[in-house]
């Protein structure tokens, strides 16, 4: 399987202290890969490094084989990478519609951007009813829909999704996971999913990567991870 995204020997962190150590990772195209691990394992730092918010001190990130080291974070969306950060990243001072339009401002194809916007409103009906509501008036579930929808307006090839279940009811989390599966199957979207809710993530993922203390401790297909009692007890806590 061809890897859409690859991290090779990636070391990165904040200031002088590295958080990630020698990460090698391949995310196959049109698959959902879950990154699992305890708090402080480096999952969020990994996503921030892959999307360019943090510059690696060593190693490189490749998208379709092209080195992204020289690509500025603002250019990542042009390469097809959408990053929905932890906490969802909704601009709470802007309305729902403004947040969604923001997701497509960089695109030249305005007609398709408009189509994508309409599709997002169809996909997330609650957002359509609250187009003019400011982000700070939305519930946690609505904010997650908005963050996801805003990423989809850019028609990404790769979605980096950080803790989408955080603070959400199990029913809403299940809906979001089902949506990821649909997007993968229907649009060929590739997803790198950082998630503490291991059961939920493995229910939708094709592969799983377990991180511990900034290193990759294990990787396997999701079914194997679910069945590996020793690994689950050691790293995933269930």
């Amino acid at each position, binding site marked *: 399987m061809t890897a859409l995204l690859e991290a090779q020997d990636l070391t990165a962190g904040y200031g002088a202290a590295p958080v990630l150590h020698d990460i090698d990772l391949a995310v196959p195209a049109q698959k959902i890969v879950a990154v699992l691990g305890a708090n402080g394992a480096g999952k969020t730092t990994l996503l921030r490094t892959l*999307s360019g*918010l943090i510059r690696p001190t060593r190693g490189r990130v490749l998208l379709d084989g092209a080195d992204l080291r020289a690509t500025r*974070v*603002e*250019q*990542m*969306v*042009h390469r097809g990478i*959408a*990053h929905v*950060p932890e906490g969802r*990243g909704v*601009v*709470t*001072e*802007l309305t729902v519609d*403004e947040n969604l*339009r*923001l*997701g497509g*401002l*960089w695109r030249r194809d305005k007609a398709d951007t408009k189509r994508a916007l309409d599709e997002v409103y169809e996909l997330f009906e609650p957002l359509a009813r609250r187009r003019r509501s400011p*982000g*700070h*008036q*939305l*519930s*946690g579930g609505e904010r997650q829909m908005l963050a996801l929808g*805003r990423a989809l307006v*850019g028609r990404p090839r790769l979605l980096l999704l950080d803790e989408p279940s955080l*603070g959400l009811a199990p029913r809403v989390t299940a809906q979001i996971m089902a949506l990821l599966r649909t997007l993968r199957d229907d649009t060929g979207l590739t997803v790198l999913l950082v998630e503490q809710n291991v059961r939920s993530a493995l229910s939708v993922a094709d592969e799983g990567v377990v991180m511990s203390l900034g290193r990759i401790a294990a990787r396997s297909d999701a079914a194997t991870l679910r069945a590996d009692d020793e690994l689950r007890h050691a790293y995933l806590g269930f």
Partner: protein
Amino acid sequence: MDRFVFLTFDGLSRGAVYAAFALALVLIWRAARIVNFAQGAMAVATAYAGYSVSAATGSYWLGFAVAIAGGLLLGAAVERVVMRFVDQSSPLNGVVVALGLVLVIQAVLGMIYGNEYRPAAAPFSRDAFEIGGIALLSRFDLYVFAAVASVVVLLVLLFTRTAVGLRMRAAAFAPDVSRLLGVHVGGMLTLGWALAAAVGSLAAMLVLPTELGLHPTAMDIVFVSSFTAAVVGGLDSPVGAVIGGLLVGLLLSYVSGYLGATVAPMAVLILLVVVLLGRPGGLFAKSAARTA
């Protein structure tokens, strides 16, 4: 009654200038979380440039255009050359650098133009029309209202109807998220400073003909009143800046007119204290966001 009407129009005219200047402060606060204490000095510098061109060419409007363009350039330069490199870990750092800029700009202006007042001509008559025996507004007052209203409308259109305005707002509120969405946050910040400085330059060109004239420190008092207006309205609220400006203008006019000009600065400070005690975020501060 005649006096009250006159003072009201006079206060609104002056308040319109404070509103424009407060708007400039709010623009930078929203973009960079810095109160630009150098705004007055920067505005005076561009007004000097404008009036120099006017004196050389005999055209007020050419000088006016130079002052506004100078504001755009100076604002962009201050952001790109100075403010971008200020350590943002403490909000005081930006304030200290801005105060340093005030000293530098005023010293340089003093060296170039001297420290005596120079006349600043008005493009229209400042003699008030009389309607029913009551002196109301002058042509210059109408010009001030029209200029400030135009700027407010243009800024509202820019921020609410254009992609650049949406990018600027997003960059100000959520820089990291905006970068992930392809917004060049640094460029938006530069544009914000440029626009704010141009609005400040406009305010200077509108207020200096009504003051003693051009002087390196000529905008200091205007800055104090406008800063009060911005805080009263809420530093995050452009609407608050405009209404705060008009409120401060009216207050100064009434207090000067009825109690004497020497009491006016105290009235502004009392207004500031009352608002800060009652509503610290300003009259138009937004309510807190929901958390779930």
